[in-house]
């Protein structure tokens, strides 16, 4: 099955019942699949007039109690940024799948690049934290989409699935588990008017006073207090918002942003990577090991919040770190920061951006690094 199809299946399995979209490559197959699956589940598929409207309607649907998602690629992701900030500000659970392609601008529509990593983190104005997951396989397009919904429901925040053209379009075996075996998290809904009134800004995530239940919720992107009441001029109010909505995510970095360690225990050199680049890296580790070179792999399954502590610990005894990204170094500063002074970090983009890393090229760099 194709990665994009797996993503759609994961969304529906997670309970997604609203999907809004504006046509864009290479995310199209997600929409095609959703338009087939959702009506059968009495869910809404709607094609909106642009990506701004797509994310806007997703937020509206989420506030009305549905699990909601949109999918796009770089150009559409840029258009969504303002409303992603609104979702952060109003603590709205929703999932945004960004199938990254080569940019800037229209770029190359069907070439892989990881150019939206920093945009995912800081694309909307203002100060905030975001959750972004990076699938490396069609299987993870399924599983991480479910996880994205779970995290968004748990922390009441938008979650980005930062896929790329390669994982979206590659076809490989995907195992769809039995529905009963999936762990699905649903947002907490207030059980009383009193609880509903305090619908925002709790370190432990306030139950969501969804619309249409008689809660008389007041939801605003303006600065507000824990009752949703506008506090449009007090610096203390926005200070509290920024700290609370950031901390509710940062405090759980270790649970949210998982890492995968492959053969790191005896490694002198570690490849650090994420997304489709991890596929080349896995292959290179295998090849290098066959040559007797002690190479390991650290794969970031979640990019934001960046798991500094886990990365720092995992790479503590590594002499050389090679960071593979299909860009000019967007996650690199985070790795350098996490590995600090004692480790030398080498940055390794593909020889030509928007192509995959060639294994022989990476292997050559590994051999130079161990020399």
């Amino acid at each position, binding site marked *: 099955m194709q990665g994009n199809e797996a993503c759609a299946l994961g969304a529906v399995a997670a309970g997604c019942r609203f999907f809004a979209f504006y046509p864009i490559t290479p995310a199209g197959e997600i929409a095609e699949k959703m338009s087939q699956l959702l*009506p059968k589940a009495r869910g809404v598929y709607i094609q909106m007039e642009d990506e701004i409207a797509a994310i806007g*309607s997703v937020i509206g649907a*989420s506030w009305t109690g549905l699990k909601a998602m949109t999918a796009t690629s770089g150009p559409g992701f840029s258009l969504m940024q303002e409303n992603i900030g*609104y979702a952060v500000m109003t603590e709205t659970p929703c999932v945004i799948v960004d199938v990254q392609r080569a940019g800037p601008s229209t770029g190359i529509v069907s070439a892989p690049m990881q150019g939206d990593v920093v945009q995912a983190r800081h694309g909307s104005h203002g100060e905030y934290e975001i959750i972004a997951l990076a699938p490396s396989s069609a299987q993870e397009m399924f599983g991480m989409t479910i996880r994205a919904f779970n995290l968004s429901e748990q922390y009441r925040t938008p979650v980005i699935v930062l896929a790329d053209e390669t994982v979206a379009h590659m076809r490989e075996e995907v195992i769809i588990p039995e529905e009963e075996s999936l762990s699905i998290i649903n947002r907490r809904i207030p059980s009383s008017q009193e609880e509903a009134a305090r619908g925002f800004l709790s370190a432990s995530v306030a139950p969501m006073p969804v619309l249409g239940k008689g809660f008389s919720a007041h939801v605003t992107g303006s600065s507000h207090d824990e009752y949703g009441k506008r506090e449009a001029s007090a610096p203390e109010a926005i200070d509290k918002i920024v700290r609370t909505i950031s901390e509710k995510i940062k405090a759980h970095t270790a649970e949210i942003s998982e890492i995968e360690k492959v053969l790191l225990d005896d490694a002198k050199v570690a490849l650090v990577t994420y997304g489709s680049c991890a596929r080349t890296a896995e292959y290179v580790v295998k090849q290098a090991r066959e040559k007797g070179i002690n190479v390991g792999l650290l794969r970031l399954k979640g990019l934001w919040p960046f798991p500094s502590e886990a990365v720092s610990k995992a790479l503590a005894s590594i002499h050389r770190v090679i960071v593979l990204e299909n860009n000019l170094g967007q996650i690199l500063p985070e790795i350098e920061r996490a590995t600090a002074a004692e480790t030398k970090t080498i940055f390794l983009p593909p020889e030509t951006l928007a192509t995959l890393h060639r294994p022989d090229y990476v292997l050559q760099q590994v051999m130079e690094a161990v020399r």
Partner: protein
Amino acid sequence: MSEAEGHPLAKYLRKGAKSHTHCSGCGNGIVAQSFLRAVDQVGIPMKRIVCVAGIGCSGWIPSPFFDVDTLHVTHGRPIAFATGVKLANPELEVVVFTGDGDCSAIGGNHLIHAARRNIGVKVICVNNMIYGMTGGEVAPTTPRGIRTTTTPFGNLERPFDLSKLVVAAGGTFVARWTTYHVARLVASMKTALNRRGFSFLEVVSQCPVQYGRRIGISEPVEMMRWFQKQSVTIEKSREMSGQELSDKFVIGEFVDVEVPELTQLYAELFEAASRESN
């Protein structure tokens, strides 16, 4: 709003919402009261209403004063958000409060597409022909020649006729009144609340501070008298030339037709899809 206690519509106001943000003489108070009168007369429970507010002075009509679920969203996007709300729960009465800048400049695309797809959202657009909140900048609805803070030599561009725009895009109930025509405004709001399809209510409203002053009518009551004088009914307008109509407000109900509403079509789609999958 302690002064409002004892007012027959006070029960519709959010408890604890204090002083409002509108300038003295603003038409938003008239729009607010007209809407609450319509709700009261139609008898829709407030529990069933969701107000979606855009950015601009008009957004402050429901937010935070109406005691209903309120989504105060990003500039230009309330109709897009409202589309999601209505599709997610078609039982809700979803009402958008927007302004001429919010819904015809930055949000123009959402307006025409919502009308085209006939989503059962009711849009109340307060058209004051200017950007009031940000400082009196020219709007897509500002008549030609008007001097604003950003057209110090006079506006070069032609204004949008918002109601006509929505009629052309497929709106199924479209009406325009001014803040002077309160009784008819309330009547059209009631009609809109009783219709299933996409409804657009344009209310030409006075902004004495940012618009009235520029055109030499800074007294709110004078502006409303000016609305009265410059308004012509749709019927009368048919006998007038474009030149004669250039400085007039054409008022009335432009269209009132029943076309299948989008959430009804979805309900049918769900039935068909479940039959197909069985």
